């Protein structure tokens, strides 16, 4: 057990260094969402409630997390492409330790995103500062696991070129179906069902509801949480199986 934790810690430190030394990852996971948060707030917050900071900040957290899929996927597919993972497969590390190493390296980035976007939101609109921010940050760590799991799955299945395309499905899905960029009222029934049953809107709702407070713990917290956890567990199990299959060279 102690050896396993040590190996996960070594893998985590290496993965974190690889991600932090890639300027593109910092631009897409931090700089771009931050720029959009400030821009959309300054332009639109007086025109539509959608872009008031109480909705915008948690929405941006969800949007930024979708890029974790891209960077987890890229990191793993590049490791596979350069045979670096093949080398590591010969070490004593096991498949679940590799997966935990990737997850643990991306969680601090998810945490930084969340803190930063709430903090900037609080600076631009001080009345949103509340204890709810802490709950928003904490639940965002849970929601990030879905996007990280999706990235590990994509990176295990696809090569470097295909990772961009597959991740863009997740990023587009988050942008369109999370309901953060436009109001859901008036959308077709099919889209509304997709929003309710897919993970994107539920992830955004969880962060938003934990931040703003809930009217009904069951409807506003438990249901979205269960749906999201279902997807997270499904994606993670699939990712572990896909990764293990690659490890065995099948």
């Amino acid at each position: 057990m102690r050896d396993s934790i040590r190996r996960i810690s070594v893998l985590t430190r290496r993965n974190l260094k690889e991600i932090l030394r890639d300027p593109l990852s910092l631009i897409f996971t931090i700089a771009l969402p931050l720029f959009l948060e400030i821009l959309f707030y300054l332009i639109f917050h007086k025109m539509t409630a959608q872009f008031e900071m109480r909705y915008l900040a948690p929405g941006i957290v969800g949007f930024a997390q979708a890029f974790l899929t891209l960077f987890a996927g890229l990191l793993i597919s590049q490791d596979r492409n350069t045979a670096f993972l093949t080398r590591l497969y010969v070490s004593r590390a096991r498949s679940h330790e590799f997966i935990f190493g990737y997850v643990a390296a991306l969680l601090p980035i998810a945490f930084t995103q969340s803190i930063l976007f709430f903090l900037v939101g609080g600076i631009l609109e001080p009345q949103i500062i509340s204890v709810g921010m802490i709950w928003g940050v904490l639940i965002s760590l849970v929601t990030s696991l879905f996007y990280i799991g999706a990235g590990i799955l994509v990176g295990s299945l696809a090569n470097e070129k295909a990772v961009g395309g597959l991740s863009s499905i997740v990023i587009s899905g988050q942008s369109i179906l999370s309901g953060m960029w436009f109001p859901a009222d008036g959308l077709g029934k099919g889209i509304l069902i997709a929003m309710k049953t897919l993970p994107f809107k539920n992830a955004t709702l969880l962060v938003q509801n934990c931040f703003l407070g809930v009217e009904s713990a069951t409807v506003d917290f438990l249901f979205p949480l269960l749906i999201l956890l279902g997807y997270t567990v499904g994606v993670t199990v699939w990712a572990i199986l896909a990764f293990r299959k690659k490890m065995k060279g099948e």
Partner: protein
Amino acid sequence: MTAIELNNLRKEYKDVVAVNDLSFTVEEGELFSLLGVNGAGKTTTIKMLSTLISPTGGDATILGKSLRNEAQEIKGLIDVSTQETAVARKLTVEENIEFYAALNGLSDEEIRERKAEAYRVFGLDTVAKKQASKLSGGWQRKLSIALALVCRPRILFLDEPTLGLDVLARRELWRAITSLKGKMTIILTTHYMEEAEALSDRIGIMDRGRLLFVGTKEELYARSGKTNVEDAFVEIVMGGDVHA
């Protein structure tokens, strides 16, 4: 003592037999070269012996441990340098060595010692602070092989270690590999016949998944009636089954 013993080791992919009931032994401390044209089954054999893929038939023992039943135990005894360069691109040379040594459970003192050894054998100290992605192909390959040695494996698999390197970088690597002879068992695959000639204690020749010859250079010359490895290789592969 026998380091590796293959007993009818076999790998099939759907209707293709990549490795066909291979049987031979390698003694501890030997440098054994596996030669063959593309698709002969060399890399598949190395991948099976280094636990990266599972055999579909037969078995092999690595230092007495069964490939089929004790793969996890074997991992602590071997290391591999693949055809492709296998380094962490955005880590420096020094960080790569530290990372790989720590992953394999070496103490801080051991890591310092092995780092110094890798610097000395491969001359990596001059590029220690450079990111791996910024090194030339030759330096990356040296780092890749140095990583395989960090944990002092008892058996080292080198799959075409000098592929794509220029003649000077290749000779430098030969020097490094020669310095390891006798200290560990080395299984080398290569397309370069002069490499096998310069480095090997014994040679195995594979073709279409089967072993056509295994023996020393002298035995190879005697069997083929030739006086160098390249001519002997062509004679054996083109001439059919010649067993030592």
